[in-house]
């Protein structure tokens, strides 16, 4: 038992412990994201820089926090930039986003993401429950959007593939690994789970609330509400299962359904 072996005074690790090597990388991403949001670049270039900077920056921060090397984190940024550039060339280029989850699956399979809550044994049962929860939230979104804004369901491969590819390869992974795997876990080690979840969920929601690429205030409010619900749901799933996999499943199902929504 720990208390029978170790002295009473424990110095907690600094909140940004493990960041020293990746500090330049993360600061660079933040700067690039700012440039992309400033409308000084051509739209396609701004999109490439924005995806690589924002999602790449969050993923790089989470990965270095979890003990992955700066090179490994840099690869993720490069892959995201490449995928977004391919999308600009052709809608099927969105499939290139799938390389990022494959790369992360490889890292997780090798046990290099266990500190972030991704690793063997895989909780498939909990992942199925997460997927069901994500589906329930998506159903609610369908109901509200259709009754309120008159949205319907429409599948357009040319629109769906790059959008869902972006969600799968960048949006979901960066959100889960950074806000749950890194921020929530670090806060939880210091505070009670409720407080840690509230702060981490607020941070995740804030990202959508200030996202300059979300078109209208209504969408922004809606996005913030559902992202807050998804953040709380995934945080609870993380605490219950001890893994990010159920949260990833919930977010994947939710965003897949979300991308099927279309006005009119």
């Amino acid at each position, binding site marked *: 038992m*720990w208390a029978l072996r170790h002295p009473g005074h*424990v110095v907690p690790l600094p909140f940004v412990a493990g960041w020293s090597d990746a500090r330049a990388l993360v600061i660079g991403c933040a700067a690039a994201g700012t440039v992309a949001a400033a409308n000084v670049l051509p739209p396609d270039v701004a999109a490439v820089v924005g995806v690589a900077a924002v999602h790449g920056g969050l993923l790089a921060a989470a990965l270095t926090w979890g003990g992955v090397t700066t090179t490994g984190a840099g690869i993720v940024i490069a892959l995201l930039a490449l995928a977004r550039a391919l999308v600009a060339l052709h809608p099927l280029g969105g499939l290139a986003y799938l390389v990022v989850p494959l790369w992360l699956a490889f890292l997780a399979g090798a046990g290099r993401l266990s500190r972030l809550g991704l690793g063997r044994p895989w909780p498939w049962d909990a992942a199925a429950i997460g997927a069901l929860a994500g589906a329930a939230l998506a159903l609610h979104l369908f109901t509200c959007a259709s009754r309120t804004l008159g949205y319907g369901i429409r599948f357009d491969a040319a629109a769906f593939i790059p959008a869902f590819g972006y969600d799968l390869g960048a949006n979901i992974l960066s959100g889960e690994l950074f806000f749950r795997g890194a921020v929530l876990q670090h806060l939880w080690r210091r505070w009670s789970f409720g407080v840690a979840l509230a702060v981490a969920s607020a941070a995740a929601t804030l990202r959508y609330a200030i996202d300059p690429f979300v078109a209208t205030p209504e969408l922004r409010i809606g996005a913030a509400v559902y992202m807050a619900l998804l953040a709380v749901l995934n945080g609870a799933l993380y605490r219950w299962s001890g893994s990010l996999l159920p949260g990833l499943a919930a977010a994947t199902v939710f965003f897949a359904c979300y991308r099927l929504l279309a006005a009119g």
Partner: protein
Amino acid sequence: MLPSARGGVAGASLLPIVVAALLAATTTGIALDGADPASPFRHLYFLPVVLAAFAFGLAGAALAGLGAVLLFAPVVLPDVERHGLTAEVGEALVTLMLVLVVGTIVGALRTQTHRQSQRLSLLVAVQKLLARDDEIEILLRRLRSLLVARLRVHDVAIVLADGGCVSATGEDARPSSLAATVTRAGRAIFVADTGEHPRPCRVGAVPLIGASGPVGALVVEADALSAADRADLVTFGVYVGLGLEHARLVARQRRAAEELDAKVAEATRHLEEMDRAKSTFIAIVSHELRTPLTALLGFGELLATRDFQAGEVHRLAGIIHRETERLVRLVDDLVDLSRLERGGAPTLRRTRLCPERAIEGVAEIFRDAGARLVFECGAALPDVDADPDAVDRILKNLISNALKYSPPSASVRVAADQEGLRRVRFTVEDRGPGIPPTALPHVFEPYYRAPGAAGAARGTGLGLAVVKALVEAHGGEVEVTSEVGFGTRISFTLAALSS
């Protein structure tokens, strides 16, 4: 970390389904009522939320309330989108707020009462456990199992100030460890995370407080330790500490009572033995007194009533003299014993005494024994500092005993030797039946007679007790060694005087 609910609400496993069904039924009712935000069916949301609050506390109320909000949102939001914040929407929102507030209050109260009830239940269980009539180690192991099961924690250890420790692995607390620090300092320490596991692991260590201060520490490792959990732990520490101290006192009292019982039984047995020995002694002494008195009376009467020739008169006077001496010895022994039992030491008149002369004086008395007595004195023995009368009585007692218990043909050796520079050792050794090893420690006790001694020869059981008292009054030591079938050797030492 909460004391776990045992039993809880009947059919609790079905309640989530009932709550979900009620939420769905209420929403369906509103939808069938034209999906009007002001539909009276909206008030039915109270039912599942309050039910969840009663069944599962604050968490249940929050989840059910969230469910109600999510289910009611598709009804309210289109109206907000189409007409803005109308009175109907306002009513709906007020109802929803009330549902949430009532659910929160009921849930919080239920959580609080549940916690108090479980805490009380655990404290009662702890008290019952510690009141058991078991060894402390067994009690501590059972207490640890009880706390692990009821507190919903990963692990529990109980560390005692006197060095004991009960943990899952059996390891002891290191002197510099958190548990040892809490035990010494007597104040609680909580650690937010050990940093050793993928998930946070909280540690709480609280002192076990007894009446005289900290008696140990209660250590838990858990997923969560809220402020209420910490306060509960501190309370448990006080209860467990007092309970442990009580259990220890009871155990100590039990041991003391057992020891006292044993001592009383031993004392009673000893008193009974003494009583028996005294009864026997009185019978023996009566007989011992009667024998010489009968001789004195008989021979005195003969001398008074008849005429005898001078030789015969001399012989009868000799018999009277010997019997009188025997009577005097017996009375002297009784006087010494009486003094010993009152705690007094024999009165001595010490003087310079030559050991050879002391032995020769006794030899004169026992000259009737003739060749049976063998006297050996070392060369140039120093004088001893002793009371001549006391030494005479010691030797007489030892020699008469040796003669009494030896076969008629066996010799008795009487010796005196110098032992070192400062002592002279007197030894009386016979070839009698010997003394059993079990009887050896008792031979110097008053009234004691070794098994078989009563049948072998007459005696009061006082002789050796008097010998020991007289030798020790001189500052000497008396020893006995014996081997059954080969004889007995009794020796004593007296302080030598420089020439």
